[in-house]
């Protein structure tokens, strides 16, 4: 229950400057304009974060040139980015990508990590497959030894930020059948590697993702991250940290939705009075507020917990899933409430609320919906008792 106050202050200062920067460079019209042109590289704010602000390393270990802020720093960054709908590619490149590289060091990994922090590389984590639903071991892509390296084959689906990425970290099966816990490996694949095909598209929140096909992709030995066949614990950790990161992002997204909705009901009049005077709407706002406050409080508690080096994988899973449940519930309550209270205007692309609601909706499902995480908590409870 104790945090270094100094570090908290530093972090708050950095996030303030980030927020100001985003206000200035990444307003909603600027965002829409930039995304319309962001077919193959992230929008310009990304370079600003890396170069002008130098913020990409705040969470990373000091050994890697970071500030050692850990998950608490990721959470603070993501919340601020969420407030401006700017989470990608921080999530894929830094939280997940750099996280995996940090924990699986090596010549290639170290170089890429440094480049990512400097804004020179964008990483996408190519893990999900079409048939997987949210099962983390459901990997059919294969990695087989081939000469003095490997051969990678398989399909990955909805790879976030892929069209912007310079590198993919790809999960594949060295052995075992789909859904088996063992036998998974991670490899680093530069985007322009022969045999990589991409079908890029926008996602509902306006950013980019892709289907990716790896057909007979030949990789050198040192493309392997970590141990062959032992990647699942790393995948689990990366996805748990990604989950908590979007939980923190959700706080930023929902605070904006809440603010806009409160503003709207105060000024919108029907039947001669502001609609804020209707008790049913007041209670709905109270419920939205409580859902948001609970999600935010639990998310920051769990972020702190995750920075405990002695934390076991099951405790981490349990805590992250609980946070995701609260966040998914809150995203539903706040997102749906924001639309309903805006009436028809909430259904359009013309106000910010429509854009924030779509991101909130995607966050509900990202890394598994509430039902998936509830079942995980139940499973962990059974194995703990």
């Amino acid at each position: 229950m104790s945090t270094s106050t100094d570090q908290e202050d530093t972090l708050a200062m950095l996030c303030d400057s980030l927020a100001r920067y985003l206000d200035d460079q990444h307003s909603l019209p600027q965002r829409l304009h930039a995304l319309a042109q962001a077919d193959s590289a992230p929008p310009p704010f990304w370079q600003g974060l890396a170069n002008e602000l130098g913020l990409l390393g705040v969470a990373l270990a000091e050994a890697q040139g970071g500030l050692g802020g850990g998950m608490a720093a990721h959470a603070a960054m993501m919340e601020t980015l969420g407030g401006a709908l700017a989470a990608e590619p921080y999530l894929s490149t830094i939280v997940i990508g750099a996280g995996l590289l940090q924990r699986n060091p090596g010549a290639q990994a170290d170089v890429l990590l440094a480049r990512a922090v400097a804004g020179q590389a964008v990483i996408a984590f190519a893990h999900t497959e079409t048939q997987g639903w949210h099962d983390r071991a459901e990997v059919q892509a294969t990695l087989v030894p081939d000469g003095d390296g490997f051969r990678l084959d398989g399909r990955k689906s909805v790879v976030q930020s892929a069209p912007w990425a310079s590198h993919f970290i790809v999960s594949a099966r060295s052995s075992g059948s789909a859904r088996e816990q063992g036998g998974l490996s991670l490899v680093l694949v530069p985007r322009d590697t022969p045999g990589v095909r991409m079908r890029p598209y926008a996602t509902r929140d306006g950013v980019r993702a892709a289907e990716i096909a790896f057909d007979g992709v030949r990789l050198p030995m040192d493309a392997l991250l970590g141990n062959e066949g032992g990647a699942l614990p790393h995948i689990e950790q990366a996805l748990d940290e990604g989950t908590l990161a979007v939980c923190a992002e959700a706080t930023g997204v929902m605070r904006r939705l809440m603010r806009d909705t409160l503003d709207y009901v105060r000024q919108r009049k029907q039947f001669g009075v502001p609609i804020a005077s209707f008790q049913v709407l007041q209670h709905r706002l109270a419920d939205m507020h409580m859902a948001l406050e609970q999600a935010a409080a639990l998310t920051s508690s769990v972020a702190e917990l995750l920075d405990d080096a002695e934390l076991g994988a099951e405790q981490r899973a349990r805590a992250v899933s609980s946070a995701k449940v609260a966040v998914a519930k809150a995203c539903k309550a706040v997102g749906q409430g924001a639309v309903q209270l805006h009436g028809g205007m909430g259904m359009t692309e013309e106000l910010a609320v429509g854009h924030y609601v779509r991101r909130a909706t995607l966050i509900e499902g990202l890394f598994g919906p509430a039902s998936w995480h509830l079942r995980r908590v139940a499973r962990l409870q059974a194995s703990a008792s």
Partner: protein
Amino acid sequence: MAWKLSPAETAFRDEVRDFLARELTPELRVAGRRCSGIFNDYEDGIAWHRILAKRGWSTPKWPVEHGGTGWSPMQHYIFASEVSTANAPRVAPMGTGMVAPVIIAFGTEAQKRAWLPGIRSGDDYWCQGYSEPQSGSDLASLQCKAVRDGDHYVINGTKIWTTHAQYANKMFCLVRTRSGGKAQQGISFLCFDFKTPGITVRPIISISGDHELNQVFFDDVRVPLDSLLGEEDQGWSVAKYLLQHERGGAWTPMLRERLRRLHTAADTAFAHRDAGDMAAADMALRLAEIECAIDAVEATELQQLRAQARGEPPGIRPSMGKVLGSELRQRITELAVEIAGPQAAIDMPMADCELDDMTVPEEAVFAMSAYLNDRAASIYAGTNEVQRNIIAAQILK
């Protein structure tokens, strides 16, 4: 739940099935399946409407003398079920279901002759001018003005949320013909040619990326005096009659069809799961919950059909139906998004989903479109807050 049909009802159901098997083209079924909004777009909707019209089924609920079918309430219900199951396009009801009943109730013989045949055949396509930017739930506060000038009304102002205005050639519209007094007074109901000069249409893109809605601007739009339906300044009673009508109709057939799709999607999503995996079992329970909820709504709708057959006034039943149907519809699309999994995030036209070896599941894209569109189900046609106000007022009377 499988309700017991009489032999005559079974025969009618088979007749409808035969018709659908014969007349509903594969292309129209695809269009129906991909319709994630409330209605299909003009082209597919009207194509199907014309096929129905040829069979005499485009306006089944109208009085027989105007071209209705004279079906029993149960026949209407069976028809709606079969049409839903077959994935027929959903035809926008502004003509057949909204303006036509008020034309029949309030129109002169000349107006009926002028407007009903075009609706029935599909030659005319109507849009509705009710809401305004400042008048949503509080419809009576509307400000769009019509002033008499010789043989014409001159309309100035704006209407919003005008579904399919981009396709329409006719509009029915509430305008203020007198100010002062109670807000409900001085409103008139006009029907006119939507191609009249001075009308402009601004598209409104919804959060699902669809273009169904529009804002309409009137700039000295001159429409003839016989555009007036009912009496001048008495349009509020016409408007209310229409709202009552709009809220009627059964939700269950569509809900059942959506649930069938969920079952199919869940079977696909969890096809490869181990027996020990709980995801499929957990989802089955939630599908059962929806199924039971549909049973309950269906029972009230069937009860309503019987009451209707006995000539009872609908009372608050349409409001109940609106609340229950729309919220269940929203729960279904929530679940559909969940079943679709990560692919639900993908934003692309459904027609583009299939592509060589990197096909994206159309059902996932549909799921999110439907989810986003369905957020409006508790807003349009009288918000669910307003409907609950109506229900409470009635039971507290």
